[in-house]
């Protein structure tokens, strides 16, 4: 339960073992590499950026190939398969697969080519369809559309963008080209949007007719030397050919589905190599040796040393990190506290001199979450769901596993508080018994009390939990100060606050007005109040005198001290903030009650039962989802804002070892 101590390490190996050493380190994933060594006359850095770029590009191509496969030959995936985690390969399997990376890359290129082909062909289809559409009104016409006329006559083929009858056209043409006498008008087809015309006239009249037609906005059709029906057929053939090509390419892609795994592997393979080359880039090397510097945890150090020295001729030196070093942080906790490490990480890892708060955070996290959701059935569902996922997907990624386990513990706490407060799907037990079995006397009695009927009691309990939570935070502050060797800071920043806030609370409890308001059954004797008041005043004076202690001038010090004492208002709002335990707890149970009531409205008949089951299932899934989310967010908030505000700053840098950061596979060393 702590921040794992780190050691600085210097590895000096022979250049011929460089590849093997790096790969071993990568598979082990326990060493964070820090390139602190500078180049000098003897040691030089190697520039492998270009190879790294090639690897990165290959990884991207492989990723795209997997994407193409997923599009045209989707994998069967269960809803929960995203929990499954990466598949584990042994070193032998890895070597065997790695040997084929060139061939697999060819397949990836082939997939890209096929996808490109599909893309190009798909772009042709709308063009062809457009042409066919334009040709459709001319279907019955039996001359090619580029027919110009005979020796003595001229033909005009085209359309006018409106519906027009033969008589109207003749009139208009007569008005526009009165001299033309030999016009033969034919309507090929007509619709609301356009009228397709075939006009023949003697050669002498051609110019006049053409001018007249221009004025009528005569448009020429898509030209082709074929009769429209034939051209139509030709286009159709082309279209079906393009479609067949697309189908062929799609099938070719689908046929490559068995290669999916090897392409996934090759993607991971190049990702790994590119990471390795990233490391290689920063290494300093002489003619025969190379140097690696970095951090390794104290626990992993001996094993790493042994493993490396067994395989290669290397020299390893460990040293304690110095004050100025930016030592990475990794947390190690027991099974109970480990799940909340992710929560702490999402805030910030402990900075220098801070302790790992996981254990305390875990205790309160589960309790607070349980109080907010507080329904036995919901808790049991959460336990069952997370337990199922954890047992089914043994290979789950670490972060996800922690998250699942956290919700399992939260579920246990939720079930516990649910029974304490007598809530099982809200008041479902009573509603079912009343509606369907006519036994209104059956209900799940709370072990402690029902917050809906005694909200004031719940509120006081929430405040009590809040005060315990905040005081624990102060306690950790005190502990941290003492551990870092300054008892004085501990007294100034923690003990005085204990006296002020604690004294204030006790004093309030001696006033009957206050205890009546909260519905408490006791009032502390006046003597306790006097003692508490004295303590609070001492605390207040202490805070005014000390919270500005870094300032030299006394005037400034007192001003800062007064401002520090003003911080007591934040304690007030912090404690009030725990009223959300009541609010969210009530929200869960009231909404459950609403759904139960809605479901039972049809009555105790068989259709009534069906309606009840439907409303029950939908309503409670919704309620569980929304309130679990609410409980999660607000538990985090209470931890981050109220609790961490008292003692925790964070700012530690996460330990990021040189390891296999892949998407589908991980390689396991068999030792």
């Amino acid at each position, binding site marked *: 339960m702590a921040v794992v101590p780190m050691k600085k390490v210097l590895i000096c190996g022979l250049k011929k073992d460089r590849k093997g050493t790096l790969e071993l380190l990568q598979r082990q994933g326990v060493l964070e590499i820090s390139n602190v060594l500078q180049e000098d006359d003897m040691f030089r850095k190697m520039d492998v950026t270009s190879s790294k770029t090639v690897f990165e590009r290959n990884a991207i191509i492989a990723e795209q190939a997997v994407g193409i496969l997923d599009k045209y030959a989707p994998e069967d995936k269960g809803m929960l398969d995203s929990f499954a985690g990466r598949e584990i390969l042994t070193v032998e399997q890895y070597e065997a697969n790695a040997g084929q990376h060139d061939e697999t890359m060819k397949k990836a290129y082939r997939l890209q080519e096929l996808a490109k082909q599909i893309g190009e062909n798909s772009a042709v289809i709308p063009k062809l369809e457009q042409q066919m559409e334009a040709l459709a009104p001319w279907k019955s016409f039996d001359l090619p559309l580029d027919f110009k006329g005979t020796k003595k006559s001229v033909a005009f083929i085209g359309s006018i963008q409106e519906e027009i009858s033969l008589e109207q056209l003749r009139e208009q043409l007569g008005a526009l080209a009165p001299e033309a006498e030999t016009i033969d008008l034919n309507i090929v087809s007509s619709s609301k949007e356009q009228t397709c015309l075939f006009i023949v006239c003697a050669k002498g009249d051609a110019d006049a007719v053409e001018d007249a037609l221009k004025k009528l906005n005569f448009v020429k059709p898509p030209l082709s030397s074929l009769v429209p029906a034939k051209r139509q057929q030709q286009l159709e053939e082309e279209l079906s050919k393009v479609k067949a090509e697309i189908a062929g390419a799609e099938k070719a892609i689908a046929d490559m589905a068995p290669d999916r795994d090897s392409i996934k592997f090759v993607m991971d393979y190049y990702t790994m190599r590119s990471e390795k080359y990233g490391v290689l880039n920063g290494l300093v090397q002489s003619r025969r040796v190379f140097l690696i510097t970095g951090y390794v945890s104290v626990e992993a150090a001996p094993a790493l040393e042994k493993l490396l020295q067994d395989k290669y001729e290397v020299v390893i030196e460990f040293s304690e990190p110095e004050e100025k070093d930016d030592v990475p942080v990794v947390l190690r906790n027991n099974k109970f506290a480990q799940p909340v490490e992710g*929560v702490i*990480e*999402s*805030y910030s890892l402990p900075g220098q001199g801070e302790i790992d708060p996981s254990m305390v955070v875990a205790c309160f996290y589960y309790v607070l979450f349980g109080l907010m959701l507080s329904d036995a059935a919901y808790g049991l569902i959460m336990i069952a769901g997370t337990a199922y996922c954890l047992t089914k997907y043994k290979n789950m990624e670490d972060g996800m596993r922690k998250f699942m386990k956290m919700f399992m513990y939260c579920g246990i706490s939720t079930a516990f508080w649910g029974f304490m407060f007598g809530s099982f799907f809200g008041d479902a037990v009573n509603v079912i018994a009343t509606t369907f079995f006519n036994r209104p006397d059956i209900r799940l009695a709370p072990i402690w009390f029902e917050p809906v009927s005694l*909200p*004031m009691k719940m*509120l006081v309990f929430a405040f009590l939990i809040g005060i315990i939570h905040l005081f624990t935070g102060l306690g950790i502050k005190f502990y941290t100060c003492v551990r870092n060797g300054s008892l004085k800071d501990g007294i100034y920043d923690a003990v005085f606050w204990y006296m002020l806030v604690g004294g204030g609370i006790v004093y309030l409890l001696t006033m009957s007005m206050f205890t009546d308001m909260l519905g408490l059954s006791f009032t502390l004797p006046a003597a306790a109040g006097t003692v508490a008041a004295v303590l609070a005043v001492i605390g207040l004076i202490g805070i005014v005198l000390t919270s500005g202690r870094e300032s030299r001038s006394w005037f400034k010090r007192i001003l800062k001290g007064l401002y520090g004492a003003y911080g007591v208002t934040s304690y007030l709002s912090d404690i*009030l*903030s725990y*009223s*959300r335990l*009541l*609010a969210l707890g*009530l*929200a869960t149970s*009231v*909404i459950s*009650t*609403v759904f139960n*009531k809605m479901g039972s409205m049809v009555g105790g008949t068989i259709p009534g039962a069906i309606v009840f089951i439907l409303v029950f299932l939908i309503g409670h899934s919704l309620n569980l989802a*929304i309130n679990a*989310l*609410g409980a999660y*967010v*607000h538990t*985090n*908030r209470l931890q*981050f*804002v109220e609790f961490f505000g008292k003692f925790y700053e964070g700012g530690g840098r996460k330990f990021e070892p040189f390891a296999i950061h892949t998407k589908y596979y991980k390689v396991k060393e068999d030792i």
Partner: protein
Amino acid sequence: MENMGVVLALLGAVLAALFAGIGSAIGVGIAGEAAAGVVTEDPNKFSKVLVLQLLPGTQGIYGLLIGFITLTQIGIMGGSSDISVAKGFLYLAACLPMAFVGLYSAIKQGKAAVASIGLVAKKPDQFGKAMIFPAMVETYAILALLISILAIFGIAGVNA
């Protein structure tokens, strides 16, 4: 006019559900627009932005809660609904904190959620902190809920 009391009390219940619901609808709506924008760029962030989008939704639930408690207390959901005018006014007043604070805090929380969604889009590892900013706004909705609940439960014991 002798039923005026129950009318006023029901008005209070309805206002709480109405205003808090409107606020949440607006808040979740604007957060949803931002969330959809992020998902077009990176579908993997869906679950994170969904959580942020849902944060302003709680006010609507609190409004429902106040409305429902009021309805049960005044006997609309079964039982006798014999409420004096004075008590009717008391219930109406008790519902108002949730109605108004619910409305405004949900909208403001929605805006904070939009900003946090932007934060997650750029720095997904800062999700824990991004969640806190909208949650800070919610505190005031919770305080209003608290006062409304305490007042409603308290009215039953008032002689009026």
